[in-house]
């Protein structure tokens, strides 16, 4: 592979790293690596590392006003007996494992529809993405009105088609609230997944899909045997991203239900916020313990998900 190097390239190569690196393009000097990676590491070191370590550190203390006292593992022990915490964990897990499936599947189907060339594709692409653009505050307000018992669209619609007995207080009923929130959240994010899937589908080699077309493959089969397998890395990326996002979810829940009714929508993040800001104390130790535990749980979950689902080869084509 070292044949065919001409003078201009040689001139450029003088400033390039020595021969060893030329032979393996995947290696380079530390200088170059530093140029690429250092800014990110500096930002991380200055702004993310300290809060992260501080949180773990704080979890071993109890703070009362300005007095800080070391309590060892006591916060963690209290966690195991904390009923509200376990309810929050359960809710967050339901949310994190179930909702991403909905999100990613919807995104994929929308992307396929756009790729297949439905009319007005350009308008639809923007239209379907609009919810992503809205802030959580706005989405929360809009959907609280939509779910309103007396004049919200959902109940009005149900009553109009004679299904009035189904009309309920969507956010006020412990059985329905979590589902209602999941729907709202999916409404907001489907468009993002669609855009990513669309980009991924476009980067697939066209020949494969055309060949399938020639073989008279229906869209169901195309989806199942070609698109999904080839898009696997993207879909998994999206799933993991959605998973992490839902493990951390806060804004939407806080504004729409505040964790109620009867803790039916209490998530780990809302509980952390309550303990840090609403619990009539300045104690950061206990919420820090929750945050630390949760951090470990999410990390572990992501690693496991990766091992189970991801194939490690890079797609070469």
């Amino acid at each position, binding site marked *: 592979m070292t044949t065919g190097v001409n003078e201009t390239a040689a*001139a450029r*190569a003088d400033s390039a790293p020595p021969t060893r690196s*030329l032979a393996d*393009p*995947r290696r380079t000097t530390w200088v170059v690596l530093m140029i*690429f*990676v250092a*800014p*990110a*590491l500096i*930002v*991380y070191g200055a*702004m*993310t590392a300290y*809060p*992260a370590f501080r*949180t773990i550190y704080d979890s071993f203390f109890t703070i009362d006003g300005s007095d800080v006292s070391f309590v060892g593992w006591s916060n963690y022990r209290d966690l195991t007996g904390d009923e509200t915490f376990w309810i929050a964990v359960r809710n967050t897990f339901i949310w994190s494992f179930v909702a991403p499936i909905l999100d990613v599947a919807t995104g994929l189907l*929308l992307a396929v529809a756009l*790729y*297949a*060339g*439905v009319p007005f*594709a350009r308008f*639809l*692409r923007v*239209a*379907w*993405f*609009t*919810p992503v*653009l*809205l*802030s959580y*505050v706005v989405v929360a*307000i*809009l959907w609280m009105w939509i779910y309103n018992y007396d004049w919200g669209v959902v109940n009005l619609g149900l009553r109009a088609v004679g299904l009035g007995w189904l009309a309920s207080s969507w956010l006020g009923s412990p059985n329905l609230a979590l589902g209602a929130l999941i729907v709202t959240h999916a409404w907001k994010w489907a468009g993002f997944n669609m*855009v990513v899937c669309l*980009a991924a589908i*476009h980067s697939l*080699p066209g020949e494969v899909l055309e060949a399938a077309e020639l073989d008279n493959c229906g*869209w169901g089969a195309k989806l199942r045997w070609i698109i999904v397998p080839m898009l696997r*890395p993207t879909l998994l*990326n999206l799933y993991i991203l959605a998973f*992490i996002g839902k*493990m*951390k979810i*806060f*804004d939407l829940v806080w504004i729409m239900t505040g964790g109620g009714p009867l803790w039916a929508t209490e998530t*780990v*993040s809302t509980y*952390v916020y309550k303990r*840090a800001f609403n619990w009539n104390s300045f104690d950061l130790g206990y*919420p820090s313990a929750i*945050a630390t535990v*949760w*951090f470990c749980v*999410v*990390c572990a979950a992501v690693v496991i998900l990766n091992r189970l689902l991801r194939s490690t080869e*890079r797609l070469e*084509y």
Partner: protein
Amino acid sequence: MAAIAMPRGFGRGALALVIGIYTIYTVAPFLWLASMSVRTTTEISFDHYAWPHPFHWEQFRIAWVDSDFATYFWNSTWVTVGAVAVVTLVGAAAAHALARYRFPGNRVIYGILFSSIIFPPQITLISLYQILVDYDLYNSLFGLMLVYISLQLPLTIYLLEGFFARIPQDLFDAAKMDGYGDIEIFVRIVLPIGMPAIATTLILNFIQLWNEFLFAVVLITDPEKRTLPIGIRAFMGDHFQDIGMIATGVMISVVPVILVYVFFSEKLIRGMTAGAIK
């Protein structure tokens, strides 16, 4: 676009119906919000779904001028654009290095940078606050911008690394053979080819930071430095939610986001349709 046939007959009709319903489901709330932005709160309370009559365009003027939305708008712009520009550049550089080069500690660094996505911001808030105070950046837009950069960096690296890793190695081998330096490769090859992913990340970061609320409310206390989401909160008082004005404020807030999206999604689509290989 692709030269693939649409499903025929019944499939087509069903598809059209589903797409139609989904489009209504997606767009209707937003249109409803737009209609409320030109109605007063009293009108809305009496009939939530009526067509605006008359159109209260002055609500926009009230928001922009009387409620200082002009100031908040520019604050938001300066902080968000600055943060997004920096985080995209820094993130892309780091993602490229992590995706392309083998070096000891590659996966460790990736793991560290990625894992910081997971910390709930409600807790890191206090420590971050303390950091800003120590660096004398509290209550400053610049400080908020730095916080925003650090907030979005892990996500950016994660998304871009995944995409950059899938760029075929042959391109790099060829470039290296042609004598390109590493940084040149980054600028001339990775950035253009990675444009779809970069555009996606950029859009996502912009949206998330433009609408970011928790850090803005805690770290900025001067009214002149407030960002747009805080400005909208002013209409959500204790006793009285000025729904009409909230809608107006939201419409003002949403316009730049739509513009950014439309502009960058063009790049995104162009990148997608141009194809990675060519």
